């Protein structure tokens, strides 16, 4: 099964090759003659798995080569001749690889006997990650299978726990992106259990290993897009902004539709969190923001936040569009927060103002509402102000305070970061592919003999992105 298969719930799950009923002993599927058609029965496979339980590498090879590709999953999904479940005969820990193959097939093959839910959970809790790593594509398949199983049970939330276990136990650590990430997040978001995803979301992805997990670019885009949605739903705007930004800024030869959607949401989140949109990094595909020119989204960001009447009109006018694109909630939220930005501007202009004056300036009728808004903003430390009994509001300039420990901690972080960068730089300098490229380029005229370290940043942001030049290698 191709890794590019759509894994939405609405997809037709049946693999093209297996339409025969599972218990039939004779596979009607033609077996390629080159393939030794020795006992490809469930008990034979079971025997193979148990006998090779201590040689997982060999088992992995055998499973891959012995079974014909087309009918492989259909065979694996069958029960034993006596109607027994082969999974029952295997130990999750020692036979991780075998169970993984069978379980993933059972979950994905159409009309195969469904494994009991607790077995899936147990597997995810106790499997041996080392063995599982031998078959990353089966892990992906399992994750998709679990997701589908959740839909079949009519209880998407059920899928969250096994997926969470799988996700936390499979990769070496959470900084590695896997194919499980987007599936897990999607399950959380569809069942509205946003906060469960938080520990995962708070570990930023820094590692990509295609040997660990058969990733495609869609996995990355989806993870960061859905992650942004989850964080926005939790009102963690700053992190949501980061996630959408990563999605928008992912390398692209043509902008993806997911990136376009992410950009729309990014703008809305920025309006909510910052009161204005900020410019995109240079490495974002140019066509992306061009696509949003002259759309309702751009009109909205232009009118935000002071032109309340115009905003209201825009939202009314495009309500259908926003609602169709699932952004109405964010749009309305941004609109409700618009007076805050006006109020914030007032704090920069005035030292004292009466509540009535504020109400007039930010075009809110009731003073009580203004008072509430002020209190919320003061509590959230968005402004520093004092409301006295007679309705006078005094704004302060709160000079930023830093303790020595804080500064030290930040310095330390920065040092770590720069160490890490240096390390990366050296790693890259050792990289074979890089050295061949650099040597080739060195012979070409106009090659300035490398850039200084300061250029690291700018060259990384450039459209090439891969042109890393490292001085120390040649010294």
């Amino acid at each position, binding site marked *: 099964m191709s890794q590019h298969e759509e894994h939405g719930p609405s997809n037709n799950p049946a693999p093209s090759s297996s339409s025969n009923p599972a218990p039939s002993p004779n596979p009607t599927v033609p077996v390629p003659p080159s393939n030794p058609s020795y006992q490809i029965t469930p008990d034979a496979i079971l025997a193979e798995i148990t006998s090779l339980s201590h040689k997982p590498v060999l088992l992995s090879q055998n499973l891959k080569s012995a079974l014909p590709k087309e009918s492989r999953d259909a065979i694996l999904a069958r029960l034993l001749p006596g109607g027994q479940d082969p999974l029952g005969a295997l130990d999750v820990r020692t036979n991780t690889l075998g169970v993984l193959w069978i379980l993933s097939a059972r979950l994905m093959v159409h009309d195969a006997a469904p494994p009991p839910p607790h077995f899936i959970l147990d597997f995810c809790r106790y499997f041996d990650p080392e063995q599982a790593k031998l078959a990353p594509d089966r892990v992906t398949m399992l994750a998709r299978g679990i997701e589908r199983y959740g839909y079949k049970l009519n209880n998407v939330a059920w899928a969250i726990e096994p997926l969470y276990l799988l996700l936390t136990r499979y990769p070496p650590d959470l900084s590695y992106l896997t194919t499980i990430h987007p599936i897990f997040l999607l399950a959380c978001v569809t069942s509205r259990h946003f906060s469960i995803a938080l520990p995962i979301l708070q570990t930023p992805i820094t*590692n990509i290993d295609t040997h660990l997990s058969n990733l495609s670019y869609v996995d990355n885009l*989806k993870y960061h897009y859905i992650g942004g949605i989850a964080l926005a739903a939790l009102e963690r705007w700053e992190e949501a902004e980061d996630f959408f930004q990563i999605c928008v800024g992912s390398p692209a030869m043509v902008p993806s*539709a997911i990136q376009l959607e992410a950009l729309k949401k990014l703008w809305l989140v920025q309006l909510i969190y910052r009161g204005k949109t900020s410019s995109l990094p240079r490495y974002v595909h140019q066509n992306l923001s061009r696509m949003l020119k002259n759309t309702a989204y751009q009109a909205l960001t232009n009118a935000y936040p002071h032109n309340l009447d115009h905003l209201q009109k825009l939202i009314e006018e495009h309500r259908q569009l926003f*609602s169709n694109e*699932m952004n*109405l909630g964010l749009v309305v939220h941004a609109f409700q927060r618009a007076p805050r930005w006006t109020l914030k501007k007032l704090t920069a202009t*005035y030292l*004292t103002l009466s509540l009535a004056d504020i109400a007039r300036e930010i075009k809110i009728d009731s003073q009580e509402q203004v008072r509430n808004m002020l209190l919320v903003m003061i509590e959230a430390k968005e402004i520093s102000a004092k409301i006295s009994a007679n309705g006078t509001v005094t704004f302060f300039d709160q000079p*930023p305070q830093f303790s020595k420990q804080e500064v030290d901690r930040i310095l330390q972080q920065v040092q770590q970061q720069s160490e890490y960068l240096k390390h990366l730089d050296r790693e890259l300098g050792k990289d074979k592919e890089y050295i061949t490229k650099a040597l080739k380029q060195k012979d070409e005229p106009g090659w300035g003999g490398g850039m200084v370290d300061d250029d690291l940043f700018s060259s990384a942001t450039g459209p090439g992105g891969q042109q890393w030049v490292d001085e120390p290698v040649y010294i």
Partner: protein
Amino acid sequence: MDSQDAQDDGIYASTSTHQSQAPQKPLIVHVDEAHPFDLESYISNYTGRTAVDRLIHIVHVSPVLAVEAFQLAVQLIQQSRDLSLYTGLIVAYDQMNANSGNQLPNSSNIAKLDQKWIDDVSAKNQAEKTKLEVELKTYANNMIKESIRMAHRYLGNFYRLTGDYSSAVKHLTKSREFCTTSQHILDMCLAIMIEHHNYANLTTYIFKGEAALESTAASNGNTGNGQAVGTSNATQIAASAAKKREKEQIQTKLDLAAAFSHLGQGNYEKVASYIFRLGPPKDLGDWAGTLISTADIAIYGALCALAGMSRGVLKTQLEGSKHFGSYLEQEPYVRELLNAYMGSNFRTVLELLTRYSARHYLDVHLSPHVQQLTNMIRNWAVVLYFQPFKSIRLDRMADAFGWTVEEVEQSVVNLIQTNQIQGRVDSQNKILQAKQTDYRADLFARAIKAGKDVQTANRKLLLRMRLQQADLVVRPPKQQPHYQQVPHHASQWQHIFE
């Protein structure tokens, strides 16, 4: 081009510009003791078309002067041949009458043009037009260049007189193609444009004029060399001196035209610097009076400079200008205004501006800009006044400017919000305080923020690099367009943000 179009381009266009500049309410200029304005002495500075034009503008904006201006205008129109001016005048007057509640006497009662005169003029115009056009056709058939040029020129002049400005420009431009020294014609084109407030097109002609000026200068040099054999040095020098004078005159006109074009676009600083660059008043030649009076130049220059330049720049520019002083002599209050501003006597500045606002509003070119200019000058004044203070009571400022406290507060708040004053208003106690920044803390805050930003940016970039290394790059789809995925993905999260 038929004459209806031309009329639209002409006087109607000019009246409609005024309306579009002040769209909400029609501008009403009050002329009274506090805002003096002497119509007769004002209009005596102008002759020809611009006088009528200015009178029509006055009819348009000032109910007090409307009747008098109307009468004057009718007299002047009778000396001209342009019937469209009369229509424009009547429209302006009736509109003013309607706006002020029909309190003015009916236009036909004050002064009436002789119907016979109208018929005569229109018949004469028609006859001349036919005659000139036939002439042009004949010449064009005969291919006599010089005659074609002359025919175009006559036609151009004719259209200018009858108020068909676009046809006039068209013919004058054509006649330019048939002659070598084109300066005079450009000159006329510019004059016509200014007459008709076509500020946007001016620039094109100014460029052409400047290019022509350079080429004549170059050709002068060449002919000078060629004639050196036969002529004595003295005449040559005299000739080149005359040329130089002429060049200066033309340059002055071009600069003035440039000033007009920038004024039309609201680019006040440029207006001022072009006006400061003008040659002496006599260089204006026939433009003085038919287009603009020297007093006008003083007013435009001073107001635009006050509004558009900082005090330092204004001072150096003013000192560096050779001839602006001679324009200032025409209008003593302008000098007073500049002096008061330089002496930080802002109350006087504002009083003068108010006192002469009628004069400014009634000027046909300046009128749409007066409000904006006044605001800008006021802002400068407030900024300059507050500069040396750490905190100041608003009532003291009100005193210094002759405003109410509310006015002061309003303008100060605007200036803070546009970042022209670094301060905050204590609205309860009516005090303006300069902003105090703790630079050390500020520096820390900024450094830490920068550090955090760079770290986040690095993290994102490194991830991006890893993605690229793993070749996880979005590629164009092979078959179906990528877009089809959108509704599919999006529909799953429909309920989240509802």
